[in-house]
């Protein structure tokens, strides 16, 4: 039996739980939620990394759909609700393939039915507008993790990619974590500063996740997890879900991206500017400096290291498909997971190891968070703390 065949057999029993997929955002940006214009029951490879046939080909059994909205949006709460509505419309349209899931038991039920368990994660504390009532509203609508920040700081937590301000979590930030614990919403530490990761691990009484982050020791990028934090995962019970984004996982791609961004600034453009003139400048740069390409092996290197630092019980996968422009060779879209698993099998990972990586760890973590929530709800009422009451304004 080849590695690919062995992986296929394994995925039939223990499919992939993916921690982060930005399909809702892509549908919002590309077609303003016109789901007929992007029918994911059919091949959408011309437009998207994700559709149902390719999820099936990739052996995906559960997906956390990101309900991400931009941090500079004037209406982050409203936009988040629209993103949630998009996921619900997808579930209503594809009941044979997608199963709404709110709990670990739902994930197992979906696996038994051969459907893809569909969960939701909010990507950034800006989605709750400094309000625990709004956080509870998102939980009520089915959101099961919240990344504490996106690329910019929020008032109560520092991001990995912004200037340090709070030095981690503020008092209100710790209250947000405690309330998430009480609800049973997973605390997601992708995107946050290392100081925030450590503060959240101190504050959380439930397992945390990194929905899409790789290892900083392998590739020095702030979006990746430092070793001291990975080493705390066994005691916490949580997991780091490796991401594939080339500019986070491949050092040459990190350096290339920095140079490309600098080139844009030199020419007077924001690095993320996608106007025609800006793209022309960018293409010219890319012709002079070919873009380094990450591979399946690059991602496997991260997993090998993360396994050393955190242990096999604390790993998962979070591809960030449809949330990144580029993908590694062999992991071009959501049908690529078997290539990664075959590579790991060839590197000596056992089938039992792979079953933990793909399925078992993620289900255990959500189950444990539900358990903690049940305990806390017996003794603690919903928090009515406000940011004003806990975080005294500086000066």
């Amino acid at each position, binding site marked *: 039996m080849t590695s690919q065949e062995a992986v296929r057999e394994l995925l039939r029993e223990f499919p992939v739980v993916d921690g982060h997929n930005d399909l809702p955002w892509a549908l919002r940006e590309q077609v303003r939620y016109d789901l007929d214009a992007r029918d994911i029951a059919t091949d959408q490879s011309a437009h998207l990394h994700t559709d149902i046939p390719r999820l099936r080909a990739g052996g995906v059994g559960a997906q956390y759909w990101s309900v991400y909205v931009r941090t500079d949006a004037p209406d982050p709460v409203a936009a988040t*609700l629209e993103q949630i*509505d998009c996921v619900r419309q997808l579930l209503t349209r594809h009941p044979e393939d997608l199963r709404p899931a709110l709990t670990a038991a739902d994930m197992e039920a979906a696996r038994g039915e051969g459907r893809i368990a569909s969960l939701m994660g909010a990507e950034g504390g800006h989605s709750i*507008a400094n309000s625990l009532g709004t956080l509870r*509203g998102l939980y*009520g*609508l089915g959101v099961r993790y919240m990344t504490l920040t996106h690329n910019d700081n929020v008032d109560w937590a520092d991001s990995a990619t912004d200037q340090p301000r709070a030095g981690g979590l503020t008092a209100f930030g710790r209250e947000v974590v405690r309330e998430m614990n009480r609800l049973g919403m997973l605390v997601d530490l992708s995107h946050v500063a290392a100081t925030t990761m450590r503060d959240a691990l101190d504050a959380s009484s439930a397992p945390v996740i990194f929905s899409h982050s790789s290892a900083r020791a392998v590739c020095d990028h702030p979006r990746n997890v430092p070793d001291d934090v990975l080493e705390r995962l066994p005691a916490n019970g949580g997991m780091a879900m490796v991401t594939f984004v080339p500019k986070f996982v491949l050092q040459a791609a990190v350096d290339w991206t920095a140079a490309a961004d600098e080139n844009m600034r030199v020419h007077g453009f924001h690095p993320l500017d996608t106007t025609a003139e800006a793209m022309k400048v960018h293409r010219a740069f890319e012709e002079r400096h070919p873009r380094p390409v990450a591979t399946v092996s690059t991602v496997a290197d991260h997993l090998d290291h993360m396994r050393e630092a955190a242990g096999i019980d604390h790993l998962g996968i979070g591809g960030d498909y449809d949330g990144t422009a580029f993908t590694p060779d062999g992991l071009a879209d959501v049908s690529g997971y078997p290539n990664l698993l075959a590579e790991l099998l060839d590197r000596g990972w056992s089938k039992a190891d792979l079953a933990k990586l793909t399925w078992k760890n993620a289900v255990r973590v959500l189950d444990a968070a539900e358990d903690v929530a049940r305990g806390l709800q017996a003794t603690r009422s*919903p928090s009515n703390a406000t940011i004003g009451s806990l975080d005294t304004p500086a000066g």
Partner: protein
Amino acid sequence: MADLQDDLRTDAAAAGEFDERTEPYPDEGVVTAESYEPVSDPDDAPMTRARAILAAHPVADGYNGLPWALKRLPWYDLEDGESTVDTDVPRLRSGHVGALFWSLHLPEGLDGDRAVGATLEQLDLAKTVARACEEGLRPACTAGQVADARNRGRVAVLLGPAGAPALGDSLGILRQLHLLGLRVLTLTGVSWASEEGLTRFGEEVVREMNRLGVIADLSGASTQTLRRVLSLSRAPVLCSRSAARSLRPHPANLPDDLLAELGAAKGLCLVPLTAEQTGPTVRDVADHLDHIRAVAGAHCVGLSGTYDSGAAHPQELGDTSCYPRLVAELLRRGWDEPDVALLTWGNVQRVLRGADFTARAAQQRREPSTATISELDG
């Protein structure tokens, strides 16, 4: 039990052919003089009769602001009694209140994302208050759940009205608020429901509300909006806080022509017990109820206590325990039992059932609307 049997009939009807139905909704659960069984002795004193009728047909109170009023209290106990507010379980019981609509209206001036976020907070607050009082209150969304709460001896709590700005001009947000329990939406204060009436997007909002079972509240809406919604809505509408303008000029009170149109459309005018809108005495309130019953019909009038919302109330109607006084006054004026039963309970139940039925039927026919305000209103 009557309520449960009505449920079975409604379900059976819902399984039939929706498209061939000419009536916008069935008259299930409508009390008529012929089918009504009296519960009081006509020879008893009015107050005794009022209590007997209310025991069988409690008040479904269309507007109450308790959660927001409790926000300023560091601690409260609704089950034991809370004298700093107008609403608590002992007084709801002695007033024979069987269902409450909790207002989610926001402080003036909130719009855009702040209105959406604040509405999520209001929904959360309402649920927290209800959950802390499980012996007395029971959250309910549908008419069946309201009946169920009553059968369990609890006061049913429904969420709404909320103001239209809560939608953030988005049908997707309307759907999420409905999932969180929103049942009534007031169609004022937005570009798509203004003095000029409904825009195309406004009409699409009403259709989507029909599909979901969110009831349109037209108190304070412009005449244009009210008329357009009456002709467009396939489910009955209500005015959550409107009295008769011919008796007392107030912008939210309805002139006779609109009352008659509301009655013809089988809508519901819920009269607020506020000195400002109805006048300072029980007799003033009864005058409004008399007038609206005469103009719109006995099937189209109900009560909104408007307690804990900051309004001043008529004398002797100061809190949620006072409904028997009002009903006794109506009996003295010659209201018969069936009309009182409709006023207190039956009409609200009919509107809820109508909205539930319309939603079930519409969901067979219509996909969730993906229309946007920029698409429809430019």
